[in-house]
């Protein structure tokens, strides 16, 4: 920036030459302020989503820039919520970007006193083995009268109600096929 530009940009100069002699408005505005735009305007994409908290089902718009969620706000198009959100829905971005969020698998071995790291693939394999073992240990083919039971009561599940229908469908389908009928969710609570 040349000396001339500096002078022209000096608010005192603008006060003396412009429409704002008292220096309380136009003359005092900084270049940063002049260039300010909402960060949502620069978003690479906007995903249309639904709030994960209560069951009202408020519409959300999720703004993404460089693979990061930069803002989540109400979707004004939604006839249910008309763009509004409660404090929890409004905090959705803080929810998914919370520093407390866990992003790696943690493992506590029997009688362990601390968490350990574990590879996701290994964890999945270990869980599969344990499911099969529990099934084998506790399988019930028939009842006392010989009527089919086809089940294990050695495995249980409690699901939240923030899961998608598609997820619930696969969970129920798999558990039913496994013979694991002890499956429950928040709706009972």
């Amino acid at each position: 920036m040349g000396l001339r530009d500096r002078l022209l940009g000096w608010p005192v100069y603008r006060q003396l030459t412009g429409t704002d002699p008292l220096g309380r408005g136009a003359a005092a505005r900084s270049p940063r302020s002049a260039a300010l735009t909402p960060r949502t305007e620069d978003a690479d994409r906007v995903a249309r989503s639904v709030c994960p908290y209560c069951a009202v089902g408020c519409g959300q718009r999720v703004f993404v820039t460089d693979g990061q969620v930069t803002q989540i706000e109400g979707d004004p198009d939604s006839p249910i919520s008309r763009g509004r959100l409660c404090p929890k829905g409004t905090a959705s971005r803080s929810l998914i970007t919370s520093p407390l969020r866990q992003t790696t698998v943690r493992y506590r071995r029997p009688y362990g006193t601390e968490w350990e790291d574990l590879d996701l693939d290994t964890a999945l394999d270990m869980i599969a083995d344990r499911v099969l073992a529990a099934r084998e240990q506790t399988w019930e083919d028939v009842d006392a009268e010989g009527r089919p039971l086809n089940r294990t009561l050695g495995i249980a599940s409690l699901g939240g109600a923030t899961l998608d229908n598609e997820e619930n469908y696969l969970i129920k389908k798999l558990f039913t096929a496994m013979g694991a009928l002890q499956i429950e969710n928040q709706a009972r609570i």
Partner: protein
Amino acid sequence: MPPAKFTSYYGRPILKPPVWTWEIAAYLFTGGVAAGSSLLAAGGQLTGRAEVRRAGRFTALAAVTASAGLLVKDLGRPERFHHMLRVAKPTSPMSVGTWILTAYGPAAGLAAVAEAAPLLPTRGPLGVARRVLPPVGSAAGLAAAVAAPALGTYTAVLLADTAVPSWHEAYADLPFVFAGSALASGAGVGLLAVSPSEAGPARRLAVAGAGLELLGAHRVENRLGLLSEPYRTGRAGRLLRAGRALTVAGVAGALLGRRSRLVSAVSGAALLAASVATRFGVFHAGVASARDPKYTVVPQRARLDRRAAESDR
């Protein structure tokens, strides 16, 4: 005064009390000292009292340097102090003050530097300086003296131009308190630094300054109704009472002990201490008035009721 009946949000202050800390109260003092000293120096310069002039100029430089330091230190972002020169706002006493200081500071500095002329060599470039400095110093000294009353009184507007109830409502009298305090502190410098034989003007200045300050303070402490209360109570009340006592003592000492160098000096110190106490007292009175919602709500309620009564008539 009957206890004020008023309501509030959990008794919490409506206003935010000043974030300014001791630096600003101290600056009120150092700014006043600088102003008083420059006036003293100019008087000495014009009336040929070299000792007075020299003491005034040195003190002014020291005080204005301290002032600048205190002001920068009080900023939340000290490295951005130069943003003060971004605009010139007549609506902002701090902006006005910045520009006053910008005018005053170099002048006071130059005047003080000029006192060093006799120490310079007679030849070479510094020889030129030795010859040029005294007249430049005189001009600078006079310039500083011209700016000094502004420097000494704008700080009253700085405080009054806030929502702080006891400062704002005192806007008519605070400038006199501060002007008097500046004069008295300048006089104190004179009494401390010069021989009693040259200190006549300083003694007279002390009397005048003390008179202004005491009168102003009396009005502030008594004429603002509920809003005078913070000036009379608590820490502010104690400081202001101490300031008054020190002022009276300083003036008395200056007048009665005019032949004693020691008594003069002690009187000068008392006057300076009085100024410190007064400035901190005023400062704390304002903070106290902002911290208690009573001083916000009750006068405003009264104002509304008055207006309602007027329009009923």
